[in-house]
């Protein structure tokens, strides 16, 4: 998604190395995706569902 849009950044965060972030975002399992610090997506989900959930944060 970051590749397509100049407005999108995407980070992979190694959970075990950043316990402060794990606490901040209440990461209890991986993968866990956090969009703009507020939308959460748990687990691996199909592409179309993932894209629509991420874009739901826009506007």
């Amino acid at each position, binding site marked *: *998604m*970051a*590749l*397509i*849009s*100049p*407005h*999108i*950044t*995407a*980070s*992979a*965060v*190694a*959970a*075990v*190395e*950043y316990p402060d*972030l*794990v606490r901040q*975002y209440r*990461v209890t399992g*991986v*993968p*866990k*995706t*956090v*969009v*703009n*610090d507020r939308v959460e997506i748990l687990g691996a989900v199909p*592409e*179309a569902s993932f*894209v*629509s959930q*991420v*874009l739901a*944060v*826009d*506007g």
Partner: protein
Amino acid sequence: MHADAGGAVNLETALAALGAPVRLVFFTQTFDCETCLPARQIVNRVASLSDQISVEEFNIVLDTDQVEAYGIRRVPAIAVVGEADTGIRFYGVPDGHELVSLVESIQLVASGDSGLSDESQALIAAVEQPIDIQVFVTPT
């Protein structure tokens, strides 16, 4: 593909056919960063597998211009940069599955092809507000 020695051939194969240059912009820290050294070793090893991959290294404390330009928040960090910055970042040591993800990101950036469906691409291209995606992962 794995980070062990047996996976080296696969990594090399995966990176042999890169069609465009990719820069790995690596951010480190001199003190209080146990994972920066192993991360650097992996970055340099990946770069050694292709003439198309180069490495730039910056210090998160000293190189504030680059830290700001790439929006880096912690170390170790890797920005995967092609002709332009794609906004793809890896935080932590990229081993195990993360090494696979890093290599795939390099391939994506070099090819410019996200591999997503036409429908997804159209939706994503219409984005006008900043979206920051953080995916928490583990190496196994």
